[in-house]
């Protein structure tokens, strides 16, 4: 049975086409769906596309920025007002993949992919989803936990508050291969400091669990403390609490547990 390609002008039509057909997959940048088709994934019988311009819109007018699900990483890198997201965007693929891969698709990318989503998780981003029954917003963490059930839904956009200050948000992807390599561990931290105290600490990790997760123990350690070596070391010591990494071709669970604290410490203390 050949693959049917259905292209819609509106996201709502695309969303209902997706939710009404178990064999339908939404085609974003192609890095996931086209690869699956190339490799003979016959569970995909319909490819759904939407031409709605809203999907590729970036709104930076307010302190809360919104990025359409169809926005590519190259487009983010071209947007000066999104400088805080340049490091995560640049860490994905090579130039061609950054010209194709989208923010929305990254939410569905399994390990060792999905690095941009780690940044979104640390930024407490919100995901706007168009289901068969209408649109709704949900926190990215909740979205990830229910990701399997979201495959029938269409992601419209993600949005988040800008980090409190430039150095309040930090991101690093640990890869074996330079400059383009798959994630051994991906780390993102948003540590707003007010009155000399860290408030609302968020630390997110990629490749440390089946999904991107928050390092809650490390967050708790930092919450309310001053941003100094002592608290950094304490956070590093707590980094592996609650993680459940897997053995993979890029590194073992043991190795990831051993080094996650080292890399968190280096990230927070600004070391290479």
């Amino acid at each position, binding site marked *: *049975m*050949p*693959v049917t390609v259905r292209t819609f002008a509106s996201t709502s039509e695309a969303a209902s086409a997706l939710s009404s057909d178990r064999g339908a997959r939404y085609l974003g940048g192609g890095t996931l769906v086209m690869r699956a*088709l*190339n*490799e*003979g994934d*016959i569970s995909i019988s319909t490819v759904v596309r939407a031409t709605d311009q809203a999907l590729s819109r970036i709104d930076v007018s307010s302190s809360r920025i919104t990025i359409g699900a169809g926005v590519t990483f190259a487009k983010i890198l071209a947007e000066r007002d999104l400088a805080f997201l340049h490091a995560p965007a640049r860490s994905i693929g090579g130039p061609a993949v950054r010209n194709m891969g989208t923010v929305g698709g990254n939410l569905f990318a399994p390990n060792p992919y999905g690095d941009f989503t780690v940044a979104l998780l640390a930024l407490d981003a919100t995901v706007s989803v168009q289901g068969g029954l209408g649109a709704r917003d949900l926190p990215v963490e909740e979205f990830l936990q229910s990701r399997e059930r979201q495959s029938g839904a269409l992601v419209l956009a993600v949005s988040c508050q800008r980090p409190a200050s430039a150095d309040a948000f930090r991101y690093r992807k640990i890869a074996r291969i330079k400059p383009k390599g798959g994630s051994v561990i991906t780390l993102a931290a948003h540590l707003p400091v007010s009155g000399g105290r860290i408030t609302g600490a968020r630390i997110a990790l990629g490749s440390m669990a089946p999904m991107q997760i928050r390092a809650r123990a490390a967050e708790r350690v930092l919450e309310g403390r001053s941003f100094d070596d002592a608290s950094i070391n304490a956070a590093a010591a707590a980094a592996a609490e609650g993680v459940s990494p897997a053995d993979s071709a890029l590194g073992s669970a043991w190795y990831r547990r051993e080094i996650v604290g080292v890399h968190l410490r280096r990230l927070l203390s600004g070391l290479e």
Partner: protein
Amino acid sequence: MLELRKDIFADERDDNLKEIGKGTQRQDMLGHVTGTSTYFDDHKLQGMLHLKVLRSPHAHARLRRIDTTEAERAPGVRRVIRGADVPVNLNTLLSLINFGKDDEPSLAVDKVRYKGEPIVAVVADSPREAYEAIAKVRVDYEPLPAVFDVEEALKSGAPVVNETYPKNTFVYHDVYDHQKLRFGDVERGFAEADHVLEQRYQMSPIEHAPTETNGSIAAPDTNGRYVVYTSTQALFFSLDTCAKILDVPSNTFHFVGGTVGGGFGGKVDTLTEPLAILGAMLTGRPVRYQLGREEEMQFGSPRGAERIFVKDGVMRDGRIVARKICAYFDSGAYTRLSSYAVVKCAAHLPGPYTIPNVHGDIYCVFTNRTPATAMRGFGVTAMDFALECQMDKLAHLVGIDPMEFRILNAYRDGDMKAHRREAKNTALIECVQVAAEKAKWPLREEAKRASSRKDGGGSRAAMSPTPQDPAPQRAAASQQRTSYDRAPPVVTQPPPPTPTPPPPRPQAPSHGAARFSSVFGTRRR
């Protein structure tokens, strides 16, 4: 950056040549930069069909039943190929040089011996339709215990991987489960030695990862022949292998290739040609069979793993007096070319050094993994890793600079090698000297003056008496003979007795190196 050291061995060369030695542009470079170099897949044929194979999800399983009826009825399917459709469904690559027993089917029939082994091939109008048909093939597997470790595979009671070799090892000279190397008496050497160091080394498998995956296109040609565009790195090897498997005269085929997107040894196995041609024979249409990247990585044969045990005896003054090696080549489920690498490896011992007592036992072991094959440095890469790590440890043990330690033990012209041939045209010492110079690694004058052309031979040319192993029992009559020579098996005879040589002396400083002063003095500009 590359520097030609014409000053070294200049007296052995005629450099008065016109084309040789010039950095002439590659004949194929214009084709490469314009994208017009023609690889096997760049041939456009009318009505091309696509072949995909169903691969085993089990590392070891009996095939109780294979049902292809649904697949045969699937849309776009032109032909489903099963093991019974392959004229000669058992082969081993080196049967072309009369070495080894046929042990590998093109399509598995009774059982599968590694995860990814092909069982059924589907030829369809499009890749998509081939994939859909493959999903409709029903196979009833009875999983069997599998063995993945070479030493486990040698234990009695280990699962038999490949019934052609019931002891899970290739059979050498009809007699042995390994290839021997015997030169002098290592046990005596160990007894004499000031230090004995025994170590274990392991190399995991390595994938060739050529940017072009293995593949071929076969098409009916005029006058009943078949033209085959192929990525093979061994044109007649592949052609003759296909003629054998498809049981037709070799001139049935017109093989075209020669421009290949990287091989490194991974395109010798003729993985795709037999089924592509059979598909063309059975459908009368051009058929393309190209491996996907995951297939290439997991089921295209890799450089096989090796486990190596090295035991050395060394004197305080740095002379190595005995080296004993036991190595296990992980051949995977079938022989392919590992049996050959084992002999090449035995010949390579003990590395580029003159050691009076050398003992080697090299095994080709079968396990339930993707069959291994040749790769750049075949049979030697892992052994060199083991030997050179060992050399570093020995140098550290006796407190000698690692460069000078190698110069001290390096083989020289006239020395006797462990495979009982005289060393000629050696140049290890000069390589160490020049590398040291490049790396600004200080060497003592004595080491700088050493030469491959001096102080070899003499006692170093002698073959010390070699004790014989207990006589082996003959291999089972059922096992056909496997040896390189087409003559009857070599009769076992002890090597001619030779007088015990005095143990080699450490190299005396030599002062006759004036002719080569340029090696250490002037740099070529």
